[in-house]
């Protein structure tokens, strides 16, 4: 077959790598035939997918891999084979061929990396349009709540950094600026592939602001990530709201100097009522109350029968990781250590990390890569070439 011939050609250039036992090495036979099966599937789908949504979805997911594979093969064809080189008599010409081959080998190497990346992305699970992200303070009292608040800030900054839309539907703070828990919904189909690695127990080690004797405490906060198969959207129409303040009637404006900033809002279609009085500005209280109403309506939707079965099932899967300590934030040594990363899981500049920007996304990318590799290896181990493909060989 054509492939085998190509593999023969390649083997001269990558003899050492050919011997490699790495299942994700490009020279691995199983990987090669897996790729070929994807390619065949892709072209078969292109012929048959008319009008079938799930097939279209699969097609577009395969698109990246197959494109990369085709480019890779095109590059391979440019490499002059050993036999052709041997036939060539002209010394200069042979040197030229050799030089050209070196260039193509480099390009080929790059293309392989790109192809592998596409292949790894393919091994991700199905996509979810939204997810529920929860931050909960764990063991450690007030200090744990302060830490939970810092994590909350880190992740909301991260959402902004990634450009994801999110809504908050529960938020309970403490007097000294801590956070008991917060629930957010993140509306982005990419978010789950990133945030899933953040679920678990986060540990902090430092001398808390509340500690007088200068001892180092260890406290925890946990992150839960529940994918949502269906998007949740709440729309509140102004005309559906009945807004009440303490001043029921009588003249307003310049005639009186009231300080009635407390606001109560009734959502007429559902009868839900919310209040806000934590601000001195009435308008701010009204905004706050509407936010709360939004959160309540969202929660109501989330709890609707169909949604809850899905959510619970996923929550339980998420629970598997619940008690696993995934990361330590050590303020004393100004470091953050991810316990799942084998080598180099520790980085310094903790405050930069807590900004929720490049440092955090860099770490998640590593976790993503490792997870995808593991998954792909597992898939290749259990994968059997389809019958037709075997016949063709």
């Amino acid at each position, binding site marked *: 077959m054509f492939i085998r011939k190509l593999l023969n050609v390649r083997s001269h250039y990558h003899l050492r790598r050919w011997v490699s036992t790495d299942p994700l090495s490009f020279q691995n036979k199983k990987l090669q035939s897996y790729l070929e099966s994807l390619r065949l599937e892709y072209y078969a789908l292109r012929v048959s997918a008319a009008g079938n949504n799930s097939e279209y979805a699969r097609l577009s997911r395969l698109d990246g891999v197959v494109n990369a594979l085709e480019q890779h093969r095109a590059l391979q064809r440019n490499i002059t084979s050993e036999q052709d080189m041997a036939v060539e008599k002209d010394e200069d010409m042979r040197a030229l061929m050799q030089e050209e081959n070196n260039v193509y080998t480099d390009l080929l190497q790059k293309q392989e990396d790109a192809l592998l990346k596409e292949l790894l992305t393919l091994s991700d699970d199905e996509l979810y349009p939204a997810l529920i992200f929860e931050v909960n303070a764990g063991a450690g009292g007030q200090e744990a709540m302060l830490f939970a608040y810092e994590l909350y800030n880190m992740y909301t900054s991260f959402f902004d950094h990634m450009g994801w839309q999110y809504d908050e539907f529960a938020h309970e703070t403490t007097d000294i600026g801590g956070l008991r828990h917060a629930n957010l919904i993140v509306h982005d189909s990419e978010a789950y592939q990133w945030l899933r690695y953040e679920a678990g127990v986060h540990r902090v080690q430092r001398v808390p602001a509340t500690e007088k004797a200068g001892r180092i405490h260890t406290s925890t906060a946990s992150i839960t990530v529940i994918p949502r198969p269906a998007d949740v959207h709440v729309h509140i129409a102004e005309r559906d709201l009945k807004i009440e303040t303490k001043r029921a009637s009588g003249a307003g404006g*310049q005639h009186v100097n009231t300080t009635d*900033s407390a606001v109560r809002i009734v959502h007429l279609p559902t009868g839900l009522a919310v209040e806000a009085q934590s601000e001195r500005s*009435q308008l701010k209280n009204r905004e706050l109350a509407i936010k709360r109403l939004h959160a309540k309506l969202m929660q109501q939707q989330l709890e609707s029968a169909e949604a809850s079965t899905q959510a619970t099932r996923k929550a339980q899967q998420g629970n598997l990781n619940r008690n696993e300590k995934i990361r330590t934030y050590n303020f004393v040594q100004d470091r953050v250590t991810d316990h799942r990363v084998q080598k180099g899981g520790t980085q310094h500049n903790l405050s930069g990390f807590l900004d929720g920007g490049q440092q955090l996304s860099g770490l998640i990318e590593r976790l993503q890569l490792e997870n995808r590799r593991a998954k792909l290896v597992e898939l290749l181990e259990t994968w059997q070439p389809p019958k037709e493909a075997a016949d063709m060989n």
Partner: protein
Amino acid sequence: MTTRTAARSLSATLSGSSSTATTTTTPPSGGSLVEVNKALDGWEQKLKDAGVRDTEFNLKCIVSHVLQRKFNTVPDDFTQLKFNSEQLADFERFCEARCARMPLQHIIGEWDFMDITLKTAPTVFIPRPETEEFVRLVIENYKDVKHVDMLEVGCGSGAMSLSMLHALPQVDATAIERSKAATALAWENAKLLGLQQRFKVHNHTMEKDKYMPEELKDKQYDLIISNPPYVKTDEFQYLHPEVVVYENLNALDGGSDGLRVARLVFELACRHLRPGGKLWLELGNEHPPLVKTIMHLKYQGRLTFVDSYFDQYKRERFVQLQKV
């Protein structure tokens, strides 16, 4: 006025005596601490007897102010909060003042308006919650406009202009104000909020044929906003003591039909709005239909009535006019 001066001299003697005892602002170590909940004892009833409504909120504002903490960080039940002896004295002094119906906003010296906090001053009009709604409407209308030259007539503490500037970076604001104290306060607030680059305020009293100060007489604007005095003269007898006794009546008195100053603003708008420019006004209850009639009768070819809007109490109070 007597309450205020008495309070002030009291605070002067208090701070004078304490500065000899301790030089730092941290609570004095020797001073005995009193639980806030204990200090509150009896005040709620006294305030109610004095005719103050919404007493819980009043007390919470005073407590936060005395403790120098942000209002929204103080727990509703005041648990674990304590006053030192100095703070306790302040607290009682402020509560006395409130019982004398001094406006809460004057007692604590600042107030929140939309997203900004403004200093208040005894003779300067205190912005009302409905005005927040008014400004919100104007912001909503101008948030996508590239650049806005805005004029405010009678800015008081600066609440409307400064919250517009705070919300919309594309706005440049000029204000005129008849009271010297308000002019100074608006400028101080602008500086405190870091908005002085885009804000100018002129001390000027708007009169017939002298609507704008000399230096602005040829200026034209895209937008004019105003919350002119609109209380009818015969309504003054029904006003709350906080308003009648403590507030600057110049900021309230709108003449017999409440539109005396508004009429001047119409004339000013004819001269200083660009064609197509808008005039937004916050007025009293019965005014929008009246304004509509006035526009039809007197301003044909100069100003047109665009629309009127309701405040959060469902009262038709805001109008939008357009320069032809």
